[in-house]
């Protein structure tokens, strides 16, 4: 009887694999779709006179200016590629836009709507804000992990301030005395220890970091809001639980969606949960506090809703519970007073001057929800111009950003923040505590890098996203066919972002050139031939730096089920620390200085430190 059951299971498995292989083939045969550009509204601003709504349309590379009362488009201003943040100058006469893929800030004259200047601004500018005196311009650089400070009149770079890893969002205190920066990737920590993040506090007049507010257990901090009186601050964040097996998803042990609430009203800082006992509110992103401080609003990018918090109740609960309660999912019932359904992937939000209206940018359905704050009801929805048809690629993106998992805990984008990675290591398989720890990998330009999974066990994205991921999301439930094929299509077409270490003309610096020679060498320093399998360029061959085969490079741990590991691609490898399959190497250097004692991961122990540095300089150009 058991044999029959096993046979049925095996048959089902084979059929499943064949079906998924078919899907994969279909996806592979699909030519790169020529996509109409969706607006993809990400952030919102209110004009200084309160009459116009500025919408940052990330997909269209535009700022659209809408009449606040009617929603009519007054102006469309082209900006740089993949804009991620914008703000007005202190005097309201200029609009600054951070263009994340162009590494620039666009300066727009708000009277004419014309672009006045485009300034270089670090690596992947994601947020921009001017100091109150109008002298300095602060830009959060996600890849640079810092805040670039520019002269607000000329764009000349003054300095760079070390921020958290993946510095992305800036908020100025109402009185202009402090600037707060958050970051989306956790700061480096010891392997297999809880993640750590920070809120970087800057004195904007002096361009100095004056404090770093610790956010223990947090990885992925998004927007931060401050009350007008400066006594209350709120940051939206993810609380991953990556040290326990992901098999615990049904117990809520995967992600918490929380706020860090801080300031004089709190008497310090405290992490508060937004989730409920049997329902999660994934990817808290935007946050706003009403002028009278009575309400806090939070968008949930993965749950298509806005959470409404009664501030008085929240503070009362905090003061009544001095012990940490971030894990207590019964807590939110004491201060969350409403959940308002909005569009897909809601991100930026904005309160009208009188606080009567809340505007929410729904990035993945090109709409803006207009909410009456008194009733917590959506009054109407502004539809932005763009393709009417929702393409398969767009549907795939919507799937990627939706929290499909059990009880809505998380979605793909929780671990692949803005379709990248999260800087964390996960215990994915239900094979025992601490077994097969795997580092997260970048999702860019994946075609030609198959198979997937660090053990090379998944031949295609369809299998990776299908049978494998479905297991984590639900245990038994599956994506429907169309949803899965859309998701596969989206992931297959995620583009490669520009490499910041390679010159635009492709020329290498002398150090990079020397490194390339080492990468391609066939003999060692002693003149001895290096076995083919021990050359960098053998396993990391081809344009993407992988021969798509698995090898034992001596980095397996006793907790790994196998030492055979898929050769990872090298594109943008500089961005994705930590390294190795389990994230045990904190830097590229440690791959060889610590984890290659027997030259199994390439012949490197004959290299001088200079040569190793050169090799790394070359790798960073890949």
């Amino acid at each position, binding site marked *: 009887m058991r044999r029959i059951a096993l046979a049925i299971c095996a048959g089902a498995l084979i059929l499943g694999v064949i079906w998924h292989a078919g899907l994969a083939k279909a996806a592979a045969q699909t030519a790169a779709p020529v996509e109409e550009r969706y607006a993809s509204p990400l952030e919102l601003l209110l004009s200084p006179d309160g009459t116009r709504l500025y919408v940052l349309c990330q997909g269209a590379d535009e700022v659209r200016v809408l009449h606040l009362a009617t929603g009519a488009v007054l102006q469309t201003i082209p900006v740089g590629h993949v804009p991620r943040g914008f703000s007005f100058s202190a005097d309201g006469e200029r609009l600054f836009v951070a263009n994340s893929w162009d590494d620039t800030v666009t300066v727009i004259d708000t009277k004419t709507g014309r672009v006045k200047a485009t300034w270089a601004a*670090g690596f992947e500018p994601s947020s921009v804000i001017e100091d109150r005196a109008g002298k300095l311009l602060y830009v959060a650089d996600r890849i*640079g992990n810092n805040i670039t400070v520019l002269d607000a009149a000329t764009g000349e770079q*003054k*300095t*760079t*301030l*070390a921020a958290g890893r993946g510095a992305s969002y800036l908020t100025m205190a109402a009185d202009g005395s402090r600037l707060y920066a958050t970051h989306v990737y956790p*700061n*480096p920590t010891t392997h297999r220890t809880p993640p750590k993040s*920070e809120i*970087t*506090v800057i004195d904007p007049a*002096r*361009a*100095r*970091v*004056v*404090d*770093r507010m610790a956010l223990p257990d947090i990885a992925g901090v998004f927007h931060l809001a401050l009350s007008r009186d400066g006594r209350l601050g709120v940051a939206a964040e993810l609380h991953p639980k990556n040290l326990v097996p992901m098999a615990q998803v049904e117990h809520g042990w995967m992600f918490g969606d929380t706020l860090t609430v801080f300031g004089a009203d709190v008497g310090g800082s405290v992490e508060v949960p937004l989730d409920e006992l049997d329902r999660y509110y994934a990817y808290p992103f935007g946050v706003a506090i009403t002028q009278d401080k009575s309400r806090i609003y939070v968008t949930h990018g993965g749950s298509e809703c806005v959470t409404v918090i009664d501030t008085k109740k929240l503070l009362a609960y905090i003061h009544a519970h001095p012990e940490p309660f971030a894990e207590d999912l019964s807590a939110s019932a004491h201060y969350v007073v409403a959940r308002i359904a909005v569009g897909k992937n809601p991100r930026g939000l904005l309160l009208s001057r009188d606080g009567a209206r809340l505007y929410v940018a729904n990035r993945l359905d090109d709409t803006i929800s207009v909410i009456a704050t008194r009733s917590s009801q959506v009054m109407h929805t502004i539809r932005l111009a763009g393709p009417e048809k929702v393409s398969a690629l767009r549907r795939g993106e919507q799937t990627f950003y939706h929290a499909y998992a059990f009880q809505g805990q998380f979605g793909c984008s929780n671990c692949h923040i803005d379709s990248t990675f999260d800087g964390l290591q996960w215990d994915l398989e239900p094979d025992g505590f601490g077994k097969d720890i795997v580092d997260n990998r970048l999702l860019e330009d994946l075609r030609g890098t198959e198979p997937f999974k660090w053990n090379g066990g998944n031949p295609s994205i369809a299998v990776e996203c299908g049978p494998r991921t479905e297991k984590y999301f639900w245990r038994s439930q599956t994506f429907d066919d169309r949803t899965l094929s859309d998701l596969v299509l989206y992931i297959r077409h995620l583009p490669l972002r520009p490499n910041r*270490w390679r010159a635009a003309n492709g020329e290498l610096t002398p*150090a990079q050139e020397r490194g390339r020679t080492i990468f391609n060498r066939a003999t060692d320093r002693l003149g001895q031939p290096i076995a083919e399998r021990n050359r960098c360029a053998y396993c990391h061959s081809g344009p993407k730096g992988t021969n798509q085969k698995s090898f034992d490079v001596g980095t397996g741990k006793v907790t790994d089920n196998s030492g055979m590991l898929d050769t990872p691609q090298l594109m943008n490898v*500089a961005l994705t620390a930590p390294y190795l399959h389990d994230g045990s190497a*904190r*830097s590229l*250097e*440690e791959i060889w*200085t*610590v984890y290659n004692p027997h030259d199994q991961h390439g012949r490197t122990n004959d290299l*001088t*430190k*200079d040569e*190793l*540095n050169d090799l*790394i*300089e070359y790798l960073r150009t890949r």
Partner: protein
Amino acid sequence: MKKTICMGILLIAGAVGLAAQSSARPTRKIHAATQLNGVPAMPRFRFENFTTANGLPDNHVFSVLVDGDRVWAGTENGLGVYEGGTWKTYTTADGLAHRAVLSLALDKRTGDVWAGTMGGLSRISAGRIDSFTQLNSGLSNDVVYGVAVEGENVWVAMAAGACRLNTRMGEWSLYNERNTPMTEIWAYGVSAAADKVYFAVWGSGLLELNQVTGVWDKYDDPDGENEMVLLKDQGLIHEITTSVSYVDGAVWVATYFGDSHYDGRHWHNFLTKDSGLPSNFTNTVKGIDRKRAWFGTDKGLAYFDGTNWAVYRPNLDTGKPEMSVRDAAGKVTEISVDTAPAHNYVLGIDFRGHDLWVATAKGLSHGIYQP
């Protein structure tokens, strides 16, 4: 006659230039060396000394850095910061690369402090410490004797050569016997400016990197590696250099066998026998400008104002505070004082206005200027 006029014009131009340079540096105070009863009026201080008894992390203080209202002390047991009358100590538990902090530098653009330790290089930024070692970064050696910040570059002197970290690109460039004239690789000190970077290399003299041309130059003792000074003022006093300070286009160099000054054209050397140096064994030198400098030796703290010398120390026999002044003619006058630096073995010097901060082998000293 024409030659004399030209020389006169040049001297006046030089004097005007120096005056202009001085006026552009409001934070560096001038100790006026007027005469008082026939003795040059050299600066006087009341020394307040810090030890573990009043909060210093350790009495062995290798380095000191003034950072606005804060003072950082690199000790054998952690990095101390003195602010608002109290000490706070950073240790390896806070992320410091090693407990022994040998060198310190301030990034004036960001306010970050860089600490060279016996176990790597650390950046202290608003309480967060990021550490770079020879294993986790491109740093070539963990024993960091010297550190300097210039623009977006951090320059490092180590037991195995020197290196530069470009903080914007995260790029490490190493300098050693393979790509510079460094014959030994024991780099002890570094001083960096936008035009030139100097390294004091123990046994390899003084190295200069011209940042404009990218060309390295090397300054050696013209007498070679012997202890005799046959050619005084012909070049560097000795190959065993310990510290360098590049300021206003002039280089001050400390060695274990005397000290040197190079203004870009002429060398001038200082020995105990012909100057006011209390010892030829000099651990550190810190230039104020082209003309004036402070020296930390194994036998006390010394100041040179371009003509006269002053020495501040506990008496070598009795331990009682003493100050002596040596004028241009070589006449030495003892000045009665009530306080002295914590110890004669001086390893680090920094300034705040007229005040001094001095790292010694038995505590940190604050020299409070007495007008």
